[in-house]
């Protein structure tokens, strides 16, 4: 008998008008000691399923029908009191955002201990002892001292450890982890996933891992359940899901994810948007977006059928059985091409020993200088016309600040930025404005980057208005043509941003950025706020536009696969420093800097084989403060190869190939001497 058995669960949410059928008949089972991954895009009902198990639905939500059996006991039928004794005791839960999931007013010790005291009926002191014990278990350094800390005194990673400790304090049989690492940096994500894995083994519990990240699933789950629009569309052991996908949705999902190996030239993208669950379509819910849909799909709902004993899917035209798999355009030996083209390009922007420091001040009137935050230190980089540079790094590494300086939103405190051979900040404000039209920014949050009070037409026309380009009629025309270029109809002109989806808004943002015919577009996390299926549309569009407009891109992202997909050359930043730069091949297949390698190994890939066999070099510890960065090599505090030399001397940039450079005393590959000197970066 499985530990947890969800049987035909329906969960609805009442709205002012009608109901959202968030979970529409889901059946999932989880065996003891097993990790089941629950994947799907936002709004597919995966979180609601988790919440339904815990019966922690929002006030307007309710379980309409179905059973949730835990050890044979139907949780749905329990009284509130009985259910409370299950929560935290039999089932533990971890949430997405450790920054907001802990009560800011209580010490972490008391927050852990209260669950222990409640369920294990021990006194406070005993509960506190247990709290220290579990904190120790989750790898919290010096738990004895940390027990009286408040959540805000801890970093995100440590907070998530506290969350885990809390969930595990009563040794539950089942752990529900809802996007446990989404809010964390890659290296921390790897730490936490590793921890969860080992704890699961140690405690012999079952885990329901809810995530949107196929990479996380690939490496951690024994079995995968794919949800779409409130329904389970496919479930199978992890290897099978990836290797012999049967449902077109699962397949499309996988095909729309850029690969770390850079083998994909163009992503598959799913047309349309998910259905409105307050009025779900009859028939297959994916039919509207499915390349294989027939009339039958639109009228009849396919049942979840088992192909094999452990593999089932709900489709009339399963790929791999009835239909053919999608073809994904594959890149030629990309790295080589980049190397060849590069020599023909001329520099567009040169960052010459650029630094940016923010002063931290104290005091009311005197404003004493309390320190400087060294956001970017001594960064040199040349951007060639027509190429795409990717900048990767964890949060706080200075990549966004670098982007801001490139579009002249921030002024560097040291060094120079040359654009087309001109010092960008050597101009009067008025001249700077006209130069600026060559430098545009693409924003991360498509919801915040468009003025909600303006019609789309006005938004796209605004840069033309500001720079007084053309007559009003010409501007109107330009707006229409821009819209069609990004794949939106001219009817959009009269609409407001809130009428569009996130992906469409990101297109509007692109159209606006293109209005001034810029030479360089800095895209700061261009797709990180978008769902996987939407993401691929935008990424493809970005590639298309680059070709048609001859654009130069700087793509800033924490997502290494996105950067790998878009960029010709990639820079890796750590704590304000550029530690390595090279072509995608150089960086991903042949990294020189230990940090780059560690970063790469931390990224979960949607390749179960690779994930399972990967040698994990998990970076230990947390990111040091940028106010007082470590001396010498900034990475030395977390580097396995670090010696005294690293602390005393800052490693210079050294070449490892034509376009490949890294700053490390003890690189992973051997240096290459280049006669022309080291300034070819």
């Amino acid at each position, binding site marked *: 008998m499985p530990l947890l058995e969800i049987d035909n669960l329906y969960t609805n949410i009442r709205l002012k008008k009608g109901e959202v059928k968030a979970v529409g008949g889901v059946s999932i089972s989880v065996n003891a000691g097993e990790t089941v991954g629950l994947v799907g895009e*936002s*709004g597919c009902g995966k979180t609601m399923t988790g919440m339904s198990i815990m019966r922690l639905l929002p006030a307007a939500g309710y379980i309409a029908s179905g059973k949730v059996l835990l050890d044979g006991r139907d949780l749905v039928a329990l009284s509130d009191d009985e259910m409370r004794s299950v929560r935290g005791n039999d089932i533990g839960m971890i949430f997405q955002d450790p920054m907001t999931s802990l009560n800011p007013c209580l010490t972490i010790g008391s927050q852990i201990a209260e669950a222990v005291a409640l369920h294990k009926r021990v006194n406070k002191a005993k509960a506190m002892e247990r709290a220290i014990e579990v904190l120790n278990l989750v790898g919290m350094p010096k738990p004895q001292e940390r027990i009286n800390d408040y959540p805000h005194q801890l970093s995100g990673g440590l907070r998530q450890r506290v969350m885990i400790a809390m969930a595990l304090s009563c040794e539950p049989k089942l752990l529900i982890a809802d996007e446990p690492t989404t809010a964390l940096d890659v290296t921390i994500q790897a730490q936490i996933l590793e921890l969860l894995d080992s704890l699961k083994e140690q405690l012999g519990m079952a885990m329901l891992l809810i995530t949107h990240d196929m990479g996380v699933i690939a490496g951690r789950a024994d079995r995968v359940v794919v949800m779409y629009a409130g329904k389970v569309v496919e479930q199978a052991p992890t290897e099978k899901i990836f290797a012999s996908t049967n449902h077109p949705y699962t397949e499309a999902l996988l095909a729309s994810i850029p690969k770390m190996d850079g083998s994909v030239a163009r992503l598959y993208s799913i047309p349309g948007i998910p259905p409105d*669950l307050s009025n779900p379509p009859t028939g297959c819910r994916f039919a509207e977006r499915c390349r294989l849909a027939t009339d039958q799909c639109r009228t009849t709902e396919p049942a979840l059928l088992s192909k094999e004993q452990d593999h089932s899917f709900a489709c009339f035209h399963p790929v791999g059985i009835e239909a053919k798999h999608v073809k994904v355009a594959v890149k030629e030996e990309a790295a080589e091409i980049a190397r060849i083209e590069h020599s023909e390009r001329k520099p567009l922007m040169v960052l010459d020993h650029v630094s940016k420091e923010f002063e931290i001040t104290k005091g009311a009137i005197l404003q004493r200088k309390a320190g400087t935050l060294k956001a970017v230190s001594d960064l040199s980089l040349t951007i060639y016309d027509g190429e795409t540079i990717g900048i990767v790094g964890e949060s706080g590494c200075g990549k966004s600040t670098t982007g801001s300086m490139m*579009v002249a939103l921030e002024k560097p405190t040291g060094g120079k930025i040359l654009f087309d051979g001109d010092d960008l900040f050597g101009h009067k404000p008025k001249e700077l*404005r006209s130069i600026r039209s060559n*430098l545009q920014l693409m924003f991360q949050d498509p919801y915040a*980057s468009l003025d909600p009070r303006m019609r789309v037409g006005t938004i796209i026309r*605004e840069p033309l208005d*500001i720079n007084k380009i053309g007559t009003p009629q010409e501007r109107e025309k330009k707006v229409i043509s821009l819209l069609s270029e990004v794949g939106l109809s001219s009817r959009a002109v009269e609409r407001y941003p809130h009428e569009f989806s996130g992906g469409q808004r990101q297109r509007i943002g692109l159209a606006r950025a293109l209005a001034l015919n810029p030479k360089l577009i800095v895209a700061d996390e261009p797709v990180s706020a978008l769902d996987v299926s939407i993401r691929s549309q935008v990424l493809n569009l970005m590639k298309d536009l680059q070709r048609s407009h001859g654009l130069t891109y700087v793509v800033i992202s924490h997502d290494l696969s996105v950067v790998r997909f878009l960029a010709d050359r990639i820079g890796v930043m750590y704590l304000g420093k550029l530690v390595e730069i090279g072509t995608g091949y150089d960086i991903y297949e042949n990294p020189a800097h230990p940090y780059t390698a560690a970063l790469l190994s931390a990224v979960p890939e949607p390749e179960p084989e690779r994930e399972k066999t990967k040698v994990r070099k998990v970076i230990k510890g947390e990111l040091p403060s940028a106010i007082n960065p470590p001396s010498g090599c900034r990475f030395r505090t977390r580097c396995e190869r670090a010696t005294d030399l690293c602390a005393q001397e800052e490693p210079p940039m050294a070449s490892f190939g034509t376009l490949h450079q890294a700053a490390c005393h003890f690189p992973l590959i051997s240096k290459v001497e280049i006669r022309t000197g080291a300034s070819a970066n």
Partner: protein
Amino acid sequence: MSKIDDLDEGLSGEGGDNSEIVGSTSGGEAYASGSQLKLIVQTFLENKLAIVGIALVVIATLFCFVGPLLYHTNQVTTSYNITQAPGHGHPLGTDQNGYDVLGRLMVGGQSSLEIGFSVAIIATVIGVLYGAIAGFIGGIVDTIMMRIVDTLLSIPTLLLLIYLAAVFRPTLKLLIVVISAVSWLSPARLVRGEALTLRVRDYVKAVRVMGGGSRRIVLRHIVPNAIGTIVVNATFQIADAILVMAVLSYLGLGLPPPAANWGSMLSDGVNYVYDGYWWLIYPAGLAIILTVVAFNLIGDAIRDSLEVRLQKR
């Protein structure tokens, strides 16, 4: 630390309705039809209390401005028929000057509403300009301008009003000026606060990247986006001005008779609290309460519907 500064604004909000639910189920992919104004109006009209508020305001306005055309009373000549109980051609009796109370309620309501609206308009215009300029120029000018506002806010409105009303002889215009003079502070702070939060929005950054100046940012982006807050605040200000008038009248610092407003009618009537002349106490009081409640309901509803718009983004 801005948490405390924004306490007023932040807390007076009612918190998002089902934001969690809407967010997690529709995945931000919900399409709203029509313009956002339509959406706001739609949400607004769904609020039954808002309908009550609107209805009350319409009734009050009709009562005060159309009523006298239908119900003719002599509000010019006093009579010695004073403090008569309702009946005998005076449905609500007569007041201490022999005026018909029902007719007086209409005339008095006119000036109450006029004061409310005038104050709201003047204070909002001044406040928005001041707040926008502080936000527009920023830096040290902003600091100085906001310290001035802080300082003025440290002197309680009512006391400042009492002081000013005691020094200057109250006339309708002067009272409007004086009440406006203490009422512009909150819109100024609100608009400036909005400017501060809006200034860091990505779409404002986008304008900078396009080469747009601060002027454009303030006028085309910040002020239009703050308009909701401004309108809500103005609604509350109408209500507050009517209340303040009543209190000033009660304290003997309002408009002298024969000019009448609900506040002065009420405070005159209060003199007869022991004599059982209820018709001098309750009608004017009810008129004030209903009107003030109405404006508060409307303001609340507008705020809610603006929030809904934000939730649907």
